[in-house]
């Protein structure tokens, strides 16, 4: 299986749009996505939101982008949570300071990592640890648990 690339960011955002711009810019600068990835994710979020109502709520914004060169996850830890509407019920919102922006190149070859990612996001203990870890530890943790 092709390994994921990881980017860890710490940032400030007042809205999910600002948060997605931070992630999209970083993914583009790393040569992973096209320059408009953030905009694609923002547009998609309007119609099909990605907030997860798990014990520790997170969001997994993503979008189809022909320009994606590698499977990657940009993890953004915000100083203060922002609102995302829920994937399962878009009339409801969750607040999260942990955003996992997914760049997915070929989903059918990437099933295991996607499954691992969902297991990871449902694991309250791991997510609690992630909040305390250094960037290097976070990347190691993601590599170990997601792939």
């Amino acid at each position, binding site marked *: 299986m092709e390994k994921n690339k990881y980017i860890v960011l710490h940032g400030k955002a007042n809205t999910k749009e600002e948060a997605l711009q931070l992630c999209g810019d970083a993914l583009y600068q790393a040569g992973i996505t096209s320059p408009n990835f953030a905009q694609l994710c923002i547009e998609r979020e309007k119609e*099909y939101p990605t907030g997860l109502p798990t014990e520790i709520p997170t969001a997994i914004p993503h979008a189809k982008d022909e320009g994606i060169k590698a499977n990657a996850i940009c993890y953004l830890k915000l100083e203060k949570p922002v609102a995302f509407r829920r994937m399962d019920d878009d009339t409801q919102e969750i607040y999260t300071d942990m955003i996992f922006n997914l760049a*997915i190149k070929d989903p059918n070859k990437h099933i295991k990592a996607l499954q691992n990612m*969902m297991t990871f996001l449902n694991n309250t203990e791991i997510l609690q640890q992630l909040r305390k870890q250094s960037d290097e530890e976070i990347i190691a943790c993601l590599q170990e648990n997601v792939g």
Partner: protein
Amino acid sequence: MSKEVKVLVACGSGVASSTIAQEAIKEIAKDAGVNVRIVKGTIAEVPTKQNDVDVVFTTANYRKPLNKPYLSVFGLISNVNRAGTEKKVKDLLVKLANE
């Protein structure tokens, strides 16, 4: 002999959550002894693609009217009510296979 059930699994972009749900549905069908043929799609494609399948599953809310049996399967990608969702999927697939 039960018939093959054609399944549409759709999510917002047809990329992430429908891929995960598709794998989960394959497993459920296998355990239930139901033959399934799964196609993936986006939620925007549901109105047209529903015509080629027996049942529609989506990982996000879908509120428009449908001609085919429909189930929201968010529980298959999250642990939120996973067992309940698995049971509903299984029951629906078994019912359709024996129609």
